[in-house]
């Protein structure tokens, strides 16, 4: 157990007590806490109740909150998300679980045409405070239909918000923020990170949507990441530091809203930027960030914006192929070196 100072500005505040928790446990704790504070929050999905979710995201919730608030449903994602939309439109705060993000394909209408648009097309009369949780990302040998990072499918749709927690701390803070938010929010848990451990405050807290995390400061090059690319970028930055290069690492945490301001501020100092993500490079968040950078801080650039994503192929199965598919620390470091070679 670790006790952190709450900050000199508030000496009277109780110290923040943290423990090391896994990413999935931190998520679970945040969800349980927000369910305790708001009786309108319920969880529905396939095997979320009795089984606790295939990744144990919902362990213990049935026991504490009962079958009224933790609801097993048929494998019917369209009806499941629709149930969430209808309940949210009536003022409840549903958390519906899609298990694997790839299953978006069978319920996209309710996500994109219903949840996302309802507030706008109904003239502001309806809010849809719906949270969709799902597991994303490659690395478990789950192959093409259980490994995708589809954040940009969703970030492209006005009305949706998309979170990609990269640490146990953010897994808890973002699920709390998502459930409390008034709009539909998709929380993408990264499958490789589920067992990762980190310091997590005991109390309930929010990680605000649309606020990037400057993980590591540096003036030579900026590395922008989402999801588990954060850890790879930190390792790349440590390696670069051994050769005297100081890389700044920015974890976006949410791709919609996008905290472009933090990225632009960094690029104004470093003049070089690499964006790393698991999704395919084509049309990825890197493309959007590159466009916004050239639009707003073009004169600060000493090198073209470098995007590092997956090649334009489905996620492969064989471990050797899958490893080659997802960007890693080595490729991020090599990319940074290429950027630094430009004078």
């Amino acid at each position, binding site marked *: 157990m670790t006790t952190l100072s709450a900050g000199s500005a508030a000496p009277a505040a109780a110290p923040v007590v943290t423990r090391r928790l896994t990413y999935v446990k931190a998520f679970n704790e945040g969800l349980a806490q927000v369910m305790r504070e708001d009786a309108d929050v319920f969880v529905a999905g396939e095997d979320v109740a009795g089984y606790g979710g295939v990744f144990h995201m919902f362990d213990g919730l049935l026991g504490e909150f009962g079958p009224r608030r933790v609801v097993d449903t048929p494998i019917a994602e369209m009806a499941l998300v*629709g149930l969430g939309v209808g309940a949210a439109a009536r003022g409840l705060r549903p958390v519906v679980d899609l298990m694997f993000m790839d299953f978006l394909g069978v319920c996209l209408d309710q996500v994109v045409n*219903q949840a996302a648009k309802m507030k706008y097309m*109904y003239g502001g009369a309806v809010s849809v405070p719906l949270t969709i949780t799902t597991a994303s990302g490659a690395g478990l040998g789950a192959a093409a239909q259980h490994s995708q990072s589809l954040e940009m499918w969703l970030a492209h749709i006005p009305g949706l918000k998309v979170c990609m927690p990269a640490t146990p701390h953010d897994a808890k803070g973002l699920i709390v923020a998502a459930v409390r938010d008034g709009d539909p929010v998709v929380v993408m848990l990264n499958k490789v990170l589920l067992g990762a451990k980190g310091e997590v405050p005991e109390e309930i807290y929010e990680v605000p949507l649309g606020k990037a995390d400057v993980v590591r400061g540096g003036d030579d090059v900026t590395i922008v990441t989402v999801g588990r690319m954060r850890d790879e970028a930190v390792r790349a930055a440590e390696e670069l530091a051994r050769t005297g290069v100081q890389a700044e690492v920015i974890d976006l945490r949410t791709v919609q*809203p996008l905290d472009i301001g933090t990225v632009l501020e960094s690029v104004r100092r470093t003049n070089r930027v690499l964006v790393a993500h698991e999704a395919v490079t084509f049309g990825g968040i890197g493309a959007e960030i590159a466009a916004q950078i050239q639009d707003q801080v073009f004169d600060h650039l000493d090198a073209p914006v470098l995007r590092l994503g997956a090649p334009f192929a489905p996620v492969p199965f064989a471990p050797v192929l899958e490893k080659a598919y997802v960007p890693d620390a080595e490729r991020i470091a090599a990319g940074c070196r290429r950027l630094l070679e430009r004078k």
Partner: protein
Amino acid sequence: MPPATTDPVTAQAPPAEVTRDVHERMVRIRLFETEAGRLMEAGRLPGFLHLYVGQEAVAAGVMSALADTDQITSTHRGHGHAIAKGARFREMYAELFGKATGYCHGHGGSMHINDLSIGMLGANGIVGAGLPIAVGAAFASVYRDDGGVAAAFFGDGASNIGAFHEAVNMAAVLRLPVIFVCENNGYAEFTAQADHMLLPDVADRADAYGIAKEIVDGMDAVAVHLAARRAVDRARSGGGPTLLEAKTYRYYDHQGVKGLRIPYRTQEEIDAWKARDAIDAMESWLVEHGHATREDIDAVWDRTRREIAEAIEYAERSPDPDPDTDLLRDVYTTGNANTTGDAS
């Protein structure tokens, strides 16, 4: 061809205040839609218009069996449902014109009219999409234990889409108070029922999910009302969902008044259904059963006509939305922010 006329058993007929109310709801729909069709033909309305004329007995019969606090979800052909649930003409016409004073402030148009204050959770441009949402609305009623039910309206065509099957099964296993109201008008857009499904009765799909079903003559508003009441009672008392199929007909084309003039229906068929017009039948019934006089009926038409003329005038006089302030309004509840990357 239309089903044979059924004469509802007088003994179980609802009281005059109910039957007159059902009739008035039908007249309101008919006149609203007829005038909307005229405006469309005159080129005064932007967008699409899916008129409900011919099917009035279904919306009026079902809605009169619901409490004001019950919820409905609707379809692309949603004006009738909104009106029967109590939506106001002014805001409806204003929305058809795309005005700032419309139900959606010009963000939605004909296919997105909604009024949460009367339990109208919205028309919907996606076929079948309202069913899962109604399941969620019913879930909320059970969650809150408020005794409410939800009715999902959809057509024969929607009974082929996955959302229908998922939603009906979900409501069945969760035993939710939902009335799935299939308005079988015989056509999925321009495709006849026999060409889009093999079962003659959509209601039989209830058997696959273990829920109650009923088929009713959708041109007989009293019969629809009584059938809806049975389904609502079942739902409210914990008996789970019902699939209620009303056999009905739309007089206008799938979209607009004259549509694409695709010869997918015969004049003989259209005339046979119009000969059993639901409003004509209801008016004869009211007079025969002493629930209303011809003068009472005329008075309903007259006052509705006046209300509609006033509402259209209001809508036309209303201001357009302002692109500077209204374009980005209501995308999010909190924080639209600097996320768009627009260079503006």
